[in-house]
């Protein structure tokens, strides 16, 4: 990764209370780039989606650790990787389609990836069944005028 001006790495247990925790930590970390309230809300929402997916899908059978690696670059990009070593996704393209969910009975809407894609500049997903899933979120924070 080029032009990294700050970075942060956290490892946390797949407990649902850690959804709010990871949102707060990311939000505090990104403050250095002076984001608008709207930009901050977008990032918090996308991170919440990815972390929740690791908890409810990745570690649905047994709990495990979630790894969050975040970077700020000198060209004002925020890059956040959220990784689990859970069950993985067989067909990533299908999983990313809006309304697709494997957890209908838990009242999941199938919108997590759609939200990440709409709220961030880019979303990439790497996954393999039995190995786990890595979601990389990217957003450029517009400079204050």
């Amino acid at each position: 990764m080029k032009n990294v001006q700050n970075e942060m790495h956290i490892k946390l247990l797949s407990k649902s209370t850690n959804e709010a925790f990871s949102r707060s930590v990311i939000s505090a970390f990104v403050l250095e780039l002076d984001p608008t309230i709207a930009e901050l809300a977008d990032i918090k929402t996308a991170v919440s989606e990815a972390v929740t997916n690791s908890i409810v899908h990745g570690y649905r059978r047994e709990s495990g650790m979630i790894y969050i690696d975040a970077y700020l670059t000198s060209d004002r990009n925020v890059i956040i990787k959220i990784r689990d070593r859970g069950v993985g996704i067989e067909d990533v393209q299908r999983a990313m389609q809006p309304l697709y969910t494997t957890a209908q009975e838990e009242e999941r809407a199938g919108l997590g990836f759609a939200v990440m894609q709409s709220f961030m500049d880019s979303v990439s997903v790497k996954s393999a069944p039995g190995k786990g899933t890595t979601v990389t979120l990217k957003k450029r924070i517009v400079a204050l005028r």
Partner: protein
Amino acid sequence: MLDTNYDNDKLTVFLSGEIDHNRAVGLRTAIDGRLTALRPSVLELDFSRVSFMDSSGIGLIMGRYRSIGLMGGELRVTNVPDNLSRIIALSGVNTLGVMK
């Protein structure tokens, strides 16, 4: 835990704070408990004090749309703050005729 008002066959639930997966699980059980006990003809979800919501909140709305629908009642989603309007629009909840 659940801030509600029951009046004239209408159950209003005042949601607040951050609605994520962790919160949604408890809210779902609590709201459905009240619905089963009261069987109101209208369920109003008031979002005025909600500061954050992700797709788990959408699941909560869609699920309650179903619960009250099964009882022959109507869902109303009210006072959605501006900062939640994008996720609401993305979800299509606004096309169900429940936004008041």
